[in-house]
């Protein structure tokens, strides 16, 4: 990739021809640093919050109302509190250093880290590469996603497949949350919060660029695949809002988890509408 290419004016022997001598890092006069700053704050908050919660190993399930936080779903260790292991406990005991959410968390984290939207957000706000358009980046050299470790970002497709499975698990959890303490149908504020979270997560997953590609983006002839063309058109419409879904679902996950934690810890009571 570094073999000499065509003799362009910029690669002529004797070095590159000079650019305009402008010393300023950027001449932008707007507040270009504000957006990356806000995004960085949000991302860092989420990273810290979820790390703490993942290793907390308590307050993740509300037995009365069958609320399970998405951060611990599916819970498949024998240590999971009674009722929270919706899929049984095939893996038995976990050693203390393995968090209970070990199945979903690496998948969901990998899905978000390699997401095209979060890549943009992260490269800009956390890595300043570049911090904003037409603002010089501070790094001496740059190889993008051409080599290890960053080419791993190209595996997003496989995280997407796995994350779609986790979404199914979350939907199952949400269905179970429609029960009251007596096991019959019931709805509380928690149920609604979980439902909103599912909608946001589904929107985020379905609007994924990899989803758009596998639905039909990879085809050369839409006319020969009318059904996939329709799917592609639908996902393309969602895809325009992918960044919005990404950020919304980040907040709904935190909100859901916090609500479940608060109920489970007994900080306040669930607001019940039915049963």
């Amino acid at each position, binding site marked *: *990739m*570094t*073999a*000499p*290419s*065509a*003799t*362009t*004016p*910029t*690669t002529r022997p004797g070095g*590159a*021809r*000079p*650019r*305009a*001598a*402008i010393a300023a890092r*950027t*001449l*932008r*006069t*707007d507040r270009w640093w504000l957006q990356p700053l806000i995004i960085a704050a949000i991302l860092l908050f989420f990273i810290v919050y979820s790390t703490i919660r993942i290793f907390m190993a308590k307050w993740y399930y509300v037995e009365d109302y069958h609320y399970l936080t998405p951060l611990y779903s599916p819970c498949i260790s024998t240590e999971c509190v009674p009722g929270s292991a919706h899929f049984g406990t095939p893996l038995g005991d976990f050693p203390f250093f393995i968090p209970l959410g070990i199945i979903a968390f690496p998948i969901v984290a990998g899905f978000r880290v390699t997401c*095209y939207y979060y*890549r*943009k957000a992260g*490269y*800009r706000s956390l890595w300043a*590469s*570049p911090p904003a*358009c*037409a603002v*010089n*980046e501070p*790094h001496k*050299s*740059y*190889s*993008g*996603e*051409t080599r290890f470790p*960053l*080419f791993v970002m*190209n*595996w*997003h*497709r496989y995280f997407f497949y796995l994350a779609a499975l986790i979404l199914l698990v979350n939907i199952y959890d949400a269905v179970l949350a429609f029960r009251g303490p007596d096991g019959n149908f019931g709805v509380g504020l928690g149920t609604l919060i979980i439902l909103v979270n599912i909608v946001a997560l589904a929107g985020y997953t379905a609007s994924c*660029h*990899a989803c*758009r*590609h596998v639905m039909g*983006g*990879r085809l*050369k*002839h*839409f*006319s020969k695949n009318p059904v996939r*063309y329709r799917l592609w058109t639908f996902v393309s419409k969602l*895809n*325009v809002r992918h960044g919005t879904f990404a950020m919304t679902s980040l907040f709904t996950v935190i909100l859901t988890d916090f609500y479940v934690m608060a109920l489970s810890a007994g900080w306040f009571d669930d607001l019940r509408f039915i049963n």
Partner: protein
Amino acid sequence: MGANDPQAAGKPATKRQFRIWRGDENGGDLQDYTVEVNEGEVVLDVIHRLQATDAPDLACRWNCKAGKCGSCSMEINGKPKLSCMTRMSTFTEDETITVTPLRTFPIIRDLVTDVSFNYEKARETPAFAPPPGVAPGDYRMQQIDVERSQEFRKCIECFLCQNVCHVVRDHEENKTAFSGPRYFIRAAELDMHPLDARNDRKEYAQAEQGLGFCNITKCCTEVCPEHIKITDNGIIPMKERVVDRKYDPLVWLGSKIFRRGQVPQTSVTSGHSSGAVHSSGGAGGQHSHAGGSHDPQAELQAQKGVNWHREVPHPTAPAVDDRGKLPLTELTFDRAAAPSPFGDDVTFPLPPEHLNFAHPDQDKH
């Protein structure tokens, strides 16, 4: 100054502060100007007024003043923009407006840069490959198959995206390996083209165009005056197409363990020497800085591949005067305008029997 400017109805003209980069490859700096601005004007108008008044030797490039030729790219208050499409009304009256040349390309003078980097990359990108066995005129495509490619055809080659991309803007050394967003959408356009016969465009984009350098930070999309969704509709789909072939983790693991799995990629990577694509029919290897390659051999080659269904007159160069120049001056020329590219003896509409196109079904003789 400004005495003969038409005073637009409405607001009176105001005096505005400008800082414009003046200089050449030996250096330069920002110089201050105070200039009159009328209602409804764009930055390019103001630059023209400066040329007419304070700075007659100020160099800038422009052509259409309608946002369609892509010549007037510059950086206005640090943002890459078309100066003919940047309205003065988007600035406050007391704002100093800084105008600089594109930063990524070598400077020629003042606001003019040498953008030949882009033309080199354009020549390196393999052209449309005609489908075998289908004659021109027999090409049939459905709208839903071509509409994705059509978005990229809107490109006016202003090179604002090439200029803003941090991969080359901040790292001159990447210019060899990186073609830039404008050529990623060119690759995507052809890879999505229903009749393009090449099937190695994904590998080419990865190995030769440096698609992996792009970290999808979307600055190209932000600056594109044609609002092409360069990243979402061009680069990311191309990256996904590369993933199909190259980054399947299982294939990668296999190649690490068995030292195999290179097979689908070598056809492109091994052909890398001069940066030109060798399979592009003889002409691709030439790098003339003057524009298209005037290689008679290649032109003949190109015509051979075309079946027009009938004898076609050869294109002939227009007549030149005894200095070898086109007689363009109105005073010495016998016609009102430049020679017609169709030949001066041709009038329109053409009689149907002189048309080069023959419909395969309806024109059976």
